[in-house]
């Protein structure tokens, strides 16, 4: 298990390197360079090409591409990600003030959808063909088909406007300091963000559970005289869980991507909202860095999924 973990961890490094390289190529391809942004348009018109070249030399912008990449990578590793073009604030500051909110939202959505989805799927499979199973299947179809923005708006209308149970947006209010204070703000965005995934996980875990229940070892477990709950949970559900975890892993990028829409609607001060603003303002360095952080988060999450599946299924541990 330890060698498996280490191997998976080591595989993260080349992947991250490739991604930083692609991000840097993306930055290179954007029009203009640092000098053209540092020097105002009026001053630029009056500057001689020699003077501009001197500036570029001083900043190292005339060095070969690969040299500049490694210099950029070195700075990034030290936490210097450059500056936002629109506000001049260090990107590091922006990312670190916004990332926790997004992580909070995504993780809440992930936990809710995984637990709810797999348990509902299991119940559905155990009661195959019953009224409950059919209604859950219909609910699952609806859940998969409804677009997030529509679902978000409808729930704001019902739970904030009509019923007044939950706040319609924002992450916190002045004076709210603990997580419990902020919890009502989290409920709706997390549920909306998790809804599609809950439906997906539910349908998948139902199929996976039905598959597990049809296996011979279920009959073996019964033939040992084990009670039904143990047969279903420990022999059926336990085996059915592995493919579900893999599915959850594949859905992670969608969860983070989906948070862009949800954060926008619920005015959630996360990185997704910042991302939309940066794209609109053509703030390319910020866009690239946010992309880098998102990809890194997805990679780390999929590493964790690998670990969990290996814990669940001993056959994965030894290739």
């Amino acid at each position: 298990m330890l060698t498996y973990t280490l191997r998976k961890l080591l595989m993260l490094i080349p992947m991250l390197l490739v991604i930083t390289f692609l991000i840097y190529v993306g930055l290179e391809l954007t029009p203009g360079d640092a000098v053209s942004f540092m020097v105002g348009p009026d001053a630029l018109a009056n500057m001689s090409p020699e003077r501009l070249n001197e500036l570029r030399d001083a900043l190292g912008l005339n060095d070969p591409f690969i040299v500049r990449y490694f210099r950029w990578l070195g700075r990034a590793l030290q936490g210097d990600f450059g500056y936002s073009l629109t506000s001049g604030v260090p990107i590091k500051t922006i990312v670190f003030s916004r990332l926790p909110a997004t992580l909070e939202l995504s993780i809440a959505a992930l936990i809710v959808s995984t637990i709810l989805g797999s348990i509902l799927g299991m119940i559905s499979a155990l009661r195959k063909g019953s009224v409950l199973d059919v209604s859950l299947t219909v609910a699952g179809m609806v859940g998969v088909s409804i677009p997030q923005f529509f679902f978000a708006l409808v729930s704001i209308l019902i739970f904030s406007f009509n019923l007044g149970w939950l706040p319609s947006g924002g992450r916190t209010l002045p004076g709210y300091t603990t997580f419990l204070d902020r919890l009502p703000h989290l409920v709706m965005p997390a549920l909306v963000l998790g809804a599609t995934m809950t439906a997906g996980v539910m349908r998948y875990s139902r199929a996976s559970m039905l598959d597990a229940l049809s296996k011979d070892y279920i009959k073996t477990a019964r033939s040992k005289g084990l009670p039904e709950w143990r047969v279903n949970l420990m022999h059926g559900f336990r085996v059915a869980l592995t493919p579900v975890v893999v599915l959850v892993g594949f859905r992670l990028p969608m969860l983070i991507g989906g948070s862009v829409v949800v954060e926008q609607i619920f005015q959630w001060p996360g990185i997704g909202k910042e991302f939309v603003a940066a794209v609109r303002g053509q703030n390319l360095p910020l866009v690239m860095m946010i992309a880098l952080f998102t990809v890194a988060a997805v990679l780390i999450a999929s590493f964790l999924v690998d670990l969990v599946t290996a814990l669940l299924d001993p056959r994965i541990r030894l290739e």
Partner: protein
Amino acid sequence: MDTILTVDNLHINFYTNNRCNEAVRGVSFQLKKGRTLCLVGESGCGKSVTASSIMRLLPPLSRIEEGEIIYHTDQGDLRLHELDPNGPEIRSIRGAEIAMIFQDPMTALNPVYTVGFQIREAFMYHTKMAAAAMKEKAVELLRSMRIPAPEQRVNEYIHQYSGGMRQRAMIAMAMACNPQILIADEPTTALDVTVQAQIFDLMNDLQREHNAAILLITHDMGVVAELAHDVVVMYMGDAVENGPVEEILTKPAHPYTSALLRSIPVLGQSKSQKLEPIRGSTPDPYNRPKGCQFRPRCDFATEKCLQDPETFDVSADHTVKCWHWEKVLANA
């Protein structure tokens, strides 16, 4: 000899796609202590269904329609066919009194738990052993099944075992609580011939040590000759012939049994040995022939065979369901 299990006139129907399949239609036999009874027949003849019904492990869309399954204990008779298939009574019998091993141990053992854990599960519900004692007993069981390095193997998973070892682990699990009856559903079909012999040796030893009754399901006549004391031949859900192994193999009284025996190649005979396959093919269970099920494929068939055959006594413990059994015997 002590009878431990009586199956009498058992009928089981399967209800799928709004059609009814009479999978078992009137099977009777008696299983005796310390003896091995072989249920023989081709695929789909109802032998596995019969075996599963004893443990009440039939799939949801099937039902025991008629007949009795009686387990004779020292405390009196238990009418298994009347128990709730998910109830506590049958659960206390499963694994403890009657245990079962299956055809393919790779799929019959759970891939995500260690072999030791799966053996200990049987103890958890049938004994009051402490955790440490269970662990020790599991190692001991694996050792008695001649699995090398049992202390280490007990913590391994089924995919780390070889084919023969898997089946031995499966038998270890079944024998965990010293059951009175072991039901083996084609236990060696998925194994090499050499490994088959080891498994049979093991089962013979177990029978001698524990005086257990074994109900062995097979389609292999070689296995029957080697292990069986008694044989029940099944065809299309019927037990067509029932008797001691010597009589069945040498003096078959049912045309199906005799045809089955003639269709087996014999090792050591010259290439000129003529194999006689049974002509025709098994009828569609949804569109059964009238009367004797074997009639369309039988050389002895007459008008009389359009009626369901009665059971005749060939000798004291040898019965057959055929109108023309005397002709079959004379012909052999």
